[in-house]
């Protein structure tokens, strides 16, 4: 692949500590498109070796709106079959720029290690000093030891090391869409983290036209239904929580968007300081960034204040445990004291319901947000959600934003991918790939 790609699949063998590279074949892209289309194909190839596969979409890291997504594909300890988890913020984009489109992680390391992917180089490095650290300290140590604050990390915390089914792979310091227990999978591999940084460039086939059209699509989105809305509070309101703004108001500090995403889906709250302060915070860690809307909503419904919910979410992120699962489990217990909830996270067990055959993360709300997708009927809604997520996971579109913006139609996405790659991907190919990955 010459365009929108670094043309490399990295194979990491944790048993031997060695890495190798394969070229990303044009034919594979023509048949499987990218993202979960190709991670699913790679999973089949390597499934005897318990693979965890990181993958980018063809649009990931480009100027196409909301091109923030990369995915993790692996067999989930919670379901026993192949599932896919999104990762966004700046990490999805950064994976693309490390010089690898796909990373296949095989086997198990004898000792704790982390994977350092940078500028087309893959290093498997000792993680003895990181093992046992929580997610926040691990990211801090990785950035400090490698001298760059922009390094993006996929990290497990103590929950992953201890083999909890609720363990999550976090992004930098924050929760992520891993509702599949991939934190446990990495823990079993003795893989503490994947650190990402790259300063490469992407070639575009029809660069001028591609960039111009990206800006045009941005303009169309700016005038759409999401105009004037921001952060998790407006998403919660759209999901029917009409008092969400008032509930969050005492702690909201700012909103934050993922790479190149026209809507800030994340909200930073201050827990240890007054959020209205305009000066630099006095505390090194004044608060927390809410990235999991479902978990926040569940905690709200359990009767916690926004500040208490923030404390719980922060504890989950540091420990590397799925906050949505925690919210569901503690919701059943009726516990509302954040300190007690935090203490219960150690060794927390429980069962969380997963919709039958689900492959995409429930981190993304199940309804259209703001945008009118012309839906009617319950079964139609479920089908729409699965297809919309499949498209997002195939091409590298932020999966929450995909459910906000009808402007990013399949037709527009295909047109832009073909413009950027010089390929001729058709709607029939897309339909077939979606059917394959959802079956």
């Amino acid at each position, binding site marked *: 692949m010459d365009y929108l790609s670094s043309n490399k699949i990295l194979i990491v063998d944790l048993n031997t500590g060695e890495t190798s590279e394969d070229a990303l074949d044009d034919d594979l892209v023509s048949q499987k498109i990218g993202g979960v289309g190709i991670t699913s194909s790679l999973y089949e190839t390597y499934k005897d070796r318990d693979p965890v596969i990181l993958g980018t979409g063809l649009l990931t890291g480009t100027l196409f709106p909301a091109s923030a997504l990369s995915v993790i594909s692996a067999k989930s300890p919670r379901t026993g079959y192949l599932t896919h988890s999104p990762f966004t913020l700046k990490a999805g984009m950064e994976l693309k720029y490390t010089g690898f489109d796909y990373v296949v992680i095989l086997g198990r390391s004898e000792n704790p290690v982390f994977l350092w992917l940078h*500028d087309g*180089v893959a290093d498997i490095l000792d993680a003895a000093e990181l093992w046992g650290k929580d997610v926040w300290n691990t990211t801090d140590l990785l950035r400090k030891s490698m*001298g*760059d604050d922009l390094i993006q990390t996929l990290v497990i915390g103590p929950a992953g090391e201890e083999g909890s089914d609720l363990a999550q792979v976090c992004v930098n310091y924050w929760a992520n869409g891993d509702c599949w227990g991939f934190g446990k999978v990495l823990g079993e591999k003795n893989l503490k983290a994947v650190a990402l940084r790259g300063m490469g460039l992407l070639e575009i086939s029809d660069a001028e036209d591609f960039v111009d059209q990206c800006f045009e699509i941005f303009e169309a989105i700016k005038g759409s239904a999401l105009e004037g809305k921001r952060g998790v509070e407006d998403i919660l309101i759209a999901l029917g929580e009409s008092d969400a703004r008032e509930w969050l108001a005492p702690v909201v500090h700012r909103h934050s968007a993922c790479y190149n995403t026209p809507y800030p889906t994340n909200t930073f709250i201050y827990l240890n300081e007054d959020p209205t302060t305009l000066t630099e915070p006095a505390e090194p860690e004044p608060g927390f960034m809410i990235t999991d809307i479902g978990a926040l909503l569940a905690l709200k419904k359990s009767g916690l204040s926004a500040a208490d919910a923030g404390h719980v979410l922060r504890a989950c992120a540091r420990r590397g445990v799925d906050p949505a699962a925690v919210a569901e489990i503690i919701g059943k217990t009726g516990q509302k004291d954040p300190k007690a909830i935090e203490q219960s996270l150690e060794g927390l067990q429980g069962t969380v319901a997963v919709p039958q055959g689900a492959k995409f993360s429930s981190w993304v709300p199940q309804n259209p947000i703001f945008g009118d997708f012309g839906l009617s009927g319950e079964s139609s809604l479920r089908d729409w959600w699965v297809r919309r997520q499949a498209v997002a996971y195939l091409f590298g579109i932020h999966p929450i934003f995909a459910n906000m913006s009808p402007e990013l139609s399949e037709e527009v996405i295909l047109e832009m991918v073909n413009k950027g790659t010089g390929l001729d991907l058709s709607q029939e190919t897309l339909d077939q790939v979606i059917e394959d990955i959802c079956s």
Partner: protein
Amino acid sequence: MNLYHSYATINQKLAQGVELHYGEEEASVLPRDPRPLRIPRIGVYAGTGTSHSWLWFAELFDRMSFHEILFMTEDMVRDGFLESLDVFAMSGGDTIRIAEWLGQEGGRAIESFIREGGLYIGSCAGAYLPLKSSKQHLDRFNFVDIKIANLSKTRPEAKRMGRKASTNYGCDFVYHPVREDVCLRTTGKEPFTGFEYFRAPLYGGPSMVTSRDSDVLAYYDGFTEKTLFLVEESLAEETLLGKVAAARTAMGDGHLYLFGPHFEHPLFPIANHLVAAAIFWDMKKGRKNWKSLDSESILEGPAKEKLVRDIKREISNSRIVAVGLEAIPVQWIIGCKTYEPEKIRVFLEAIWKRINTLERSRSVCAQSETCEEVVVTASRVTRLLRQMKSRMDDHSDTQDLAWDLFDSLRRLAMIFLQIYFDSFGRSLDS
């Protein structure tokens, strides 16, 4: 006309054994002369006291396919490595520090190289170095009777960039009236033919007043929209306009070309062309043997891949830290020069942009100790940069690390570029 392509063609034809003459057919970019052309062997000085501008010579030579290049330290100058060369190029830096580290022995070696027919090309600090001076260290290099016009008994008032506007020079001050692009006018003397007006950047180089012993090749003729005035414009005009920007002087059987501005800067093709023309026109007439590397120095297969991968790993690690440092407002003073974090990447990018070529090549030419040295030095640079970032995060001083870092970067770039030019200058493959 693509000047780089013209010179690359000449060098490639010569490497293939084609006989070419000045001014004829493929060599029409040069003035006519009955002499046959041959490939010049060029030493680029990258020793202690140099700044990053010697990398511009490396860039120019790479673009024009001059591939018989030797990057030299002060020790190599003193140890007789100049004897096998036709040309010795000295770019910018801290003139006094360069002179100090070359010492009397280095001064004698350069003088003897020129007197025996060698060509010395000096720009900026490299132009100041051989001028008449009684100042300590510089007094070992009194090669040519050319006076510095930008010299003053009192320090002129700086309009901006005070530290870069002037520097002590014994009891006097050398001041730098402007920085960035200036307009130059050639006198039409060979080999500076074909272009009357051109531009080159001035970063502290001299304006000169020559005696009858020297040929004036170009004058400072005006300023541009990019010219940055460090002193009053009237003083800048008085100091530069009509003064000599480029001169050619004979010494023994050899010649010196002295350029106030950086003619070797990669954004100035006409100035680059004049450097190449000077090289072909006045390079040493005869030469001694060039030490060729034996076949054990050629790395292929996994050994070559490992070397390139090891270098790439460390340069990537270093670049990642260096980019982050550029957001931090810090400067270091090394000798009499000011260094900013942006300079770090100038060295690293000179390596990074060439790694792909080495990755693609079937083989690489390097002695085993050189392979080890380049990787060890690259790792050292990464370690120093990470240490520097850590100290900056803690608001601690980094001056001592900066000395070590820039010295290591210089050595790293030297070793790497030597491998690069050796690999492609010897037509292994490309």
